[in-house]
């Protein structure tokens, strides 16, 4: 229930307008330029970070042992590790984020950092401050170690997934999360397919347009000239069809695509949080059983353990409930925004294309 921890302070930057303005590709590594505005007024922090820094940040967020109920927090999901010249499998994992020249990835990163910096609990972490403001890259030395509980999670998952919850709210949340995670994932993937196909069409249109240019025949013959000009015009038409497709695809990615991707990752994060809580619940239940069965000698110790687990569990539940409510509101808003933006952008593109096509059509009609 308590959010404010002694010693912790809000970061010295605005959380809502952190930007990832640049991505530098150096060999196999991507370096991101992160810009944040100082709270104190004018001035910006410019820091260069690599993906390992992000992992460091996340690890520190996870492992804030001193924050009660930290496990109940839905940690903002960190995008998958980007790779230059990634294999098809990695690209598939990246989904929308792997498209284009990493702009979608930067967007995702940006939104991750904003979420962290605006999160009522997480923003108080020192790591955030360091990550955003320190000129030196933070702990690159501890790169590998911080995949802390994921493995154990994966092992225990099968067993604890179906664990009956004592709280109906959380049981419902878990069930809902399970369903919707699958749906969102599949929707995201399908939508990605759509975008990929649109890109293919754009490329095909480009080829066709280029090939049409080769059909142009020189000569004085009016018929030939007529045909040539038809080819040139048609090539223009296909060029604009190509542009239309490109921008349609881009719109898809930049709005709904990213929205669905974020949603999907967030749901994963929620799932993890719920799972952590379920683990805690299981732990608590064991402790209770142990306390009941315990011999009088150990009873006190057991009771102690039980009590500690209970408090922690309650903390977690409290935080989790808040987090879930916050997340529900946020995701609806986020999705709504994505849908509205998507719709508006597509409308704009469609109108522009319609105008262009109309012009082309008039051009053709006007031809002798």
């Amino acid at each position, binding site marked *: 229930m308590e959010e404010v921890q002694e010693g912790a302070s809000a970061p010295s930057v605005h959380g809502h307008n952190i930007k990832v303005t640049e991505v530098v590709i150096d060999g196999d590594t991507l370096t991101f330029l992160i810009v944040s505005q100082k709270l104190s007024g004018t001035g910006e922090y410019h820091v260069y970070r690599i993906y390992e820094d992000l992992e460091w940040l996340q690890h520190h967020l996870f492992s804030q042992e001193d924050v009660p109920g930290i496990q109940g927090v839905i940690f903002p999901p960190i995008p998958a590790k980007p790779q230059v010249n990634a294999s098809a499998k990695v690209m598939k994992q990246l989904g929308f984020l792997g498209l284009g020249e990493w702009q979608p990835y930067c967007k995702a990163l940006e939104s991750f950092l904003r979420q962290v910096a605006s999160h009522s609990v997480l923003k108080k972490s020192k790591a955030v401050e360091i990550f955003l403001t320190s000129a030196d890259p933070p702990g690159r030395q501890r790169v590998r170690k911080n995949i802390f509980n994921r493995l154990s999670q994966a092992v225990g998952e099968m067993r604890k997934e179906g664990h009956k919850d004592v709280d109906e709210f959380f049981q419902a949340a878990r069930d*809902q999360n399970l*369903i*919707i995670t699958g*749906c*969102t994932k*599949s*929707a995201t*993937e*399908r*939508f990605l*397919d*759509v975008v990929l*196909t*649109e890109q*293919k*069409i754009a490329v*095909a*249109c480009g*080829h*066709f347009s280029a*090939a*049409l240019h*080769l*059909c142009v*025949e020189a000569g004085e*013959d009016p*018929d*030939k000239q*007529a*045909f040539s000009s*038809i080819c040139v*015009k*048609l090539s223009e*038409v296909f060029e604009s*069809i190509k542009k239309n497709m490109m921008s349609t695809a881009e719109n898809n990615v930049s709005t709904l695509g990213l929205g669905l991707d974020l949603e999907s990752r967030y749901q994963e994060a929620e799932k993890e949080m719920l799972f952590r809580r379920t683990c805690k619940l299981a732990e608590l239940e064991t402790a209770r059983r142990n306390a009941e069965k315990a011999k009088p000698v150990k009873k006190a110790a057991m009771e102690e353990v039980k009590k500690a687990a209970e408090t922690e569990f309650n903390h977690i539940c409290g935080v989790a409930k808040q987090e879930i409510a916050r997340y*529900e509101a946020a995701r*609806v808003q986020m*999705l*709504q925004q994505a*849908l*509205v933006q*998507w*719709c*508006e952008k*597509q*409308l704009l593109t*469609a*109108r522009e*294309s*319609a105008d262009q*096509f*109309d012009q*082309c*059509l008039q051009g*053709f*009609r006007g*031809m002798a």
Partner: protein
Amino acid sequence: MATSSERSPPPFPDSEDQDVLDPEDVGGRDSDEEDGEDLFLSPSDPPLADLDTPLPLANQPIEVLMTPPSDIMSDLLIEPISCQSEIQSASEVVTEPSDDFVDLTNNLTEEAADNVAAAAQDTAIISLDEPSDDFVDLLGSETEALQEEAVVVVDVPADTATDKSEGMGSDTDPPGEGKEEVEEVEEVEEASTAAVFDLIGDSGGESDSNTQQSPGIDTFVDPLVDLLSDTPPAAEAQKPSMATIDLFNEDEGSDLFSDPLLTMSARQPQKSLFGETDEDLFGEPLGATSKKTINKEQKDKTVTIKAAAVGGGINITGPLQEINPAEAGDLFTEEAVATVPSVSSTSTVNSKTNGVHSEEETDIFAEATVELSLDSPRSERKKEVMAKPSAPAPSLSATASLAKPQSAALEEMDEEEEEEQEDQFEIFVSVKDPEKIGDGMTAYMAYKLSTQTTLPMFRTKTFTVRRRFSDFLGLYEKLSEKHGPNGYIVPPPPEKSILGMTKMKVGKDDSSSADFVERRRGALERYVQRVVNHPSLLQDPDVREFLEREELPRAVSTQALSGAGFLKMINKATDAVSKMTIKMNESDVWFEDKLQEVESADQQFRKLHALVESLVVHRKELSLNTASFAKSAAMLGSAEDNTALSRALSQLAEVEDKMEQLHQDQASNDTFSFAELIADFIRLLGAVRGSFDHRIKAWQRWQDGQAMLQKKRETEAKLLWANKPDKLQLAKEEIAEWEAKVTQYEREFDRVSATVRKEVIRFEKEKAKNFKRQIIKYLESLLQSQQQLIKYWDAFLPEAKAIA
């Protein structure tokens, strides 16, 4: 245009009948003419002997002319006059020469007939323009003056005809196509030759009347005075023609009503002759006929007019070549005024010849052929007109009335010609309702073939038949067999598709099979439409049968892998081999360039086709992906707890569903607007290459013929050396035979070349037009789908905003 001449028979099926009837008309006319002559001689008495007399006139001059070919001119000039005198006395002679005359006349008449036909227009105009009132008065006087001339003219033609009856072939031939048609016309009008013969007879009769009426001129003095201005023109017309013999080549012969005939037969000799003849004719005829002051005046005027006429004639020639009604009309009207109706008939003949000449000489084959095809009806009309002139007074009004119908008829013809241009748009063939008939491996697809047309060649405006795919192939086989060797580009049908057919037969009802059927249906429709859009192919009886006949005999040898098909494949292979081995020495840069263009266009189109096909594949994929996205969006919506979001997501699913349809339509639009269009053109380019191959084959035949001729000549030389006269004769005959063949082959090659050229140009025009049309259609649908998309988004936006 050559095609139009071939076509002409159907539009005028009656022409021959009418020709047959002509003789009767002629007969009637004869009597009429006699009456006319009577009028001149003694207004009420009709001397039946007149008919005969004219003939002698013609015959005699002819004979005279025949004998001294070079001196003929002077003789001719003199003779007409003498003839007249003779005619008066020598009506007995008539019978004997008549036979000869008939022959001569045949030659003449044929030419004349042709010419006449062409000139029919002119005559019509003339008749229209005639001031009927003046005409009545003038008739007497005019007839005299003109008749004389006419006589002369007739004689000259006869002579020239005789001379050239042999020469005709070569002289007239130069316009190859035109000549062929002329020959046809001649055949058609053999019947009409009699009529022409009559005409000549008429003119002769008129000449009689002239001679006889020379005294009667006095009576007409007043009219003549009035006419003088008019008559001179007539004289002009004739004189210029003579004077302008040189001009004939330039088509100035328009003025030369009498001359055209001459030019027809003896162009070169005429020059010299005419130079002399002109003056002589004018001087003498006039002098002979008119010893009166008026006549002298005429002379003077005629002389002056000659010059003027020559000038005028020159000016006029241009228009005449084009058969400009207005100017021609003026000339002719004057002439007509000058000449009595009966004479006018002769004049019309001449004038017609003029017209023909101008056309032939100008090489306006297209027009010439078209008009020639119309000849028979015109000639009939002419004859009618001529018949009427024979009775001067009544005829005047009659001619006027006739003239109108004629002109009207001419207008109709013009309209028809125009229609030919627009024909393409007056027949629409649609292929619909593909239907599977039968089961198993004997199953086939039948299509409904509906034709909508306003063309008169079809009995009804709309008709529908059922055809199966092999029928379409059968049509192509027939057409390409018939027209391919002539250099025509026969539009090819879609290929047989074993895969598609097998799928269809097996009864797989998936989308690819439906797609196949639809593609084929579209291809068949475009194929048939291309065939009927081709002006020559549309005339083919097989095409009409294909469109109209209820039951077609089963097309054979179209089986995909039947024995015949296999044979065909082998043939094609050998063709390809010979194509490679025949190294054609391409002399025509145009063809060389075109062939290269076609080759590169073929490659380009193939590339384009592949690109469009891949585009279509992607579009289909997009449609599929959109569909699956719609499905998962719907699932997401149903899984969503937030009601507003859930609602919006299911709306989104619906929108995506609609978009899927849109993408699908776009895919098929791409397919049918571009992929199929391009596939069509790849096929057509194949046909174009085929026509090139046919041209090369024709060339090869010609070369082979030449080689053979060379060989024969060598044998002849050898035989000559060996001194074997008996075999030499044979060799000579063979050489003659091969020479003929070689010229024929060469002509065929030229013809095929010309056709291929025309067809390729037509193909290119069609190509540009077709593409433009298709692209416009494509863009229209693209625009439409884009607008539909806007609508969808517009509808979805409030839904998205409603989430909160």
